[in-house]
């Protein structure tokens, strides 16, 4: 294990955390957009109630990924920033509109028409953002982005767009919607809980289809990832574990064991992100930048690891407190009947 490997592992771990927390926030926004039926209003209220206190903290994982990337792997950051200029800029617009609209809706004018307008902006950008995020990941994995050793682009600004990135974007939306529905089912009560149980089952089916589509497409469109997913020593165990988590989540949902379903769904999503990272190892940006080639000097990486360690020591207890206060057993929720 070199410091570079450890740092790359930290980036991946932060991405897993982002998917599990920030991803679910996006998913909540998707369910806000798709709210329907007699309990439309309650569904939206539950989403708002669930996200309110935590979305800003959840979002910082993404910032952490950015800073660790530019400190520890500067050419990779340059490569991603230049070749993905268009989707990242759109992603930013989405992130800004989403956060702002969510807050304006919660704290602003309570008239229905105004609320509905902010709600639409919030939920619309909640679809846009994971779509673009997924597309960026897809583009990085596919090998469409060609760069120099310094991370300056050799491909055209439109190179990121293709079938595999689009499929990855759609898959990310399905995955986050699934995760959010499971989390929300835990927090809801009564009929509302049934609403989200049904949504979780539906979204779970969409995740399955999305995964199949991505796997098929990767055969031609992202050969390195395809090889990683199918023909390495750990490929089979990882696939089996992911499949088992997915099956477990489904079974728990069927039997209305929501706490268990949350655990299994989180494991499933975490394993999928890990699987992506592991399958493109040792590349950071396929096929031109490996972890080793993109590494900052050791003199930077070692102190950075220390900083991450010290940071984590302050972060973990704080996060634990936050989630205990708002998501703990006694927290309760007014979202139920």
């Amino acid at each position, binding site marked *: 294990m070199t410091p570079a490997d450890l740092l790359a592992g930290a980036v991946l771990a932060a991405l897993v955390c982002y998917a599990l927390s920030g991803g679910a926030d996006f998913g909540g926004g998707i369910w806000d957009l798709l709210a329907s039926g007699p309990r439309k209003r309650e569904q939206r209220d539950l989403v708002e109630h669930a996200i309110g*206190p935590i979305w800003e*903290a959840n979002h910082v994982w993404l910032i952490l990924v*950015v800073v660790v990337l530019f400190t520890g792997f500067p050419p990779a950051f340059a490569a991603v*920033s230049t070749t993905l200029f268009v989707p990242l*800029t759109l992603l930013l617009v989405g992130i800004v509109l989403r956060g*702002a609209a969510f807050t304006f809706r919660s704290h*602003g004018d309570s008239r229905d028409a105004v609320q509905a307008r902010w709600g639409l902006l919030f939920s619309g950008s909640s679809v846009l953002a994971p779509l673009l995020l997924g597309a960026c990941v897809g583009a990085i994995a596919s090998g469409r982005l060609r760069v120099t050793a310094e991370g300056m682009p050799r491909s055209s600004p439109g190179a990121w767009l293709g079938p595999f990135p689009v499929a990855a974007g759609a898959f990310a939306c399905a995955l986050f919607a699934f995760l959010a529905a499971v989390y929300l089912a835990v927090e809801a009560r009564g009929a509302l809980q049934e609403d989200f149980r049904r949504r979780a089952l539906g979204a779970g089916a969409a995740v399955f289809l999305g995964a199949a589509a991505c796997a098929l497409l990767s055969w031609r469109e992202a050969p390195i990832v395809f090889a990683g997913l199918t023909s390495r020593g750990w490929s089979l165990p990882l696939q089996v574990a992911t499949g088992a988590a997915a099956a477990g989540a489904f079974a728990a949902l069927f039997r209305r064991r929501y706490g268990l379903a949350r655990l299994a769904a989180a494991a499933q999503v975490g394993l999928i992100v890990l699987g992506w990272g592991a399958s493109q190892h040792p590349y950071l940006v396929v096929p031109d930048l490996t972890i080793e080639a993109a590494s900052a000097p050791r003199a930077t990486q070692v102190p*950075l690891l220390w900083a991450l360690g010290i940071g984590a020591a302050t972060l973990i207890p704080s996060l634990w407190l*936050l989630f205990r206060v708002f998501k703990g057993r006694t927290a309760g929720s007014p979202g139920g009947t």
Partner: protein
Amino acid sequence: MTDLDAARWLFGTSLAFHILFAAVGVAMPVLMVLAEWRGRRARSAVHLELARRWAKGTAILFAVGAVSGTVIAFELGLLWPRFMAFAGPIIGMPFSLEGFAFFAEAIFLGIYLYGWERVSPRLHLASGVLVAASGALSAFFVTLANAWMAHPAGFDLVLGRPASLRPLEAMFPPGWAHEVVHVLLSCYAATGFAVAGIHAFFLRRAPGHAFHRAALGIALAVGGGAALLQPLSGDFSARELARTQPVKLAALEGHFETRRGAPLHVGGLPDADARVTRWALEIPRGLSLLAFHDPDAEVKGLSEFPREVWPDPLKVHLAFQVMVGLGTAMAALALVALGLAWRARAVPGHPLFLLAVTAAGPCGFVALEAGWLVTEWGRQPFTIWGVMRTAEAVTPVPNLAVAFWAFAALYLFLGAMVALLLWRQILRAPPAPGSPESPRGAAP
């Protein structure tokens, strides 16, 4: 608009926008905590209500601060990838630590804003203190990175590339202390004055209103205290600049010829081609006195340096005059407030005083923006002084003007919405408990 110009405009606009919310995010938690603390200690319902109201406004401002900060984190790469590829490994340390400060800030703000009924009063107040501390810490770290750009340290330059990196040395480059102190004070001064201005405005309409008086007291204490220290800290900054960044000092003073006993230019327009500053009020030996605390000291002028490393002295000097002018006025008003409060042993309520505080409301933020322009324009034409020019840092991606206009429109929209929401929230404030009369009821 060339791509370089578009990148500058976009980045400058994004930061000028973000810094407003960031400054509020640093200072507002201090105000909230003070109000809540008084409320709990003195069992003052008015102060508790005040803490809640302030928290509501802060929630909106903080959210916009968080999303606009995210934009900047990405824009560092989107607009200046070569700068980041060069500087990332050297100054990534403060940015990474800043990331954890953001975490702490966001986590405890969540507990503070949404936890009134969920956590014990102690934990609630402690969360507020942690938000205030981590806000100051995040400003501290990011300012270190900015100080490094003006005076790079902690690496050797070998064939145009950084070598033998010393990240810990880079974290505290020469000149970090003055900048950090001045930036932190500016957040408290600007926010304190803005909040004081708003409540003074309402006090003029409803004299004696307990809610607004409590608010004015706290805001003036924080803002006025910082404003009194600001000129001292600014003087420290100027002396440090004389030592570490003489070109910037010369530009911001409109000082062209190196000389002993250099005069201070108040106002005036520097003319870079003619190398003179016209129409300024000259205070003999003033600059030597301020920059070195010695009326006969030699101060280097711009002519000492090749023209290619000059920033535009006109822009930098004007921005500097705005900051110093407003800073002086704010400090003077803070002194008056201190005197009045001392005599009355209470929050002063004289209508003329309230008028002055209302008028001074925006001054802190104007001074803060102007001061940042001094620093950023004063570093040009370099991004990393003496090492990398701005033109070398910019991205090769074309059509940046499109992104600039899109974000400009976005910021304008967000700014307008925030102003509208806050205004509504303030107007809708029902009569505070214990107030003699209610403020205006409904929104217009």
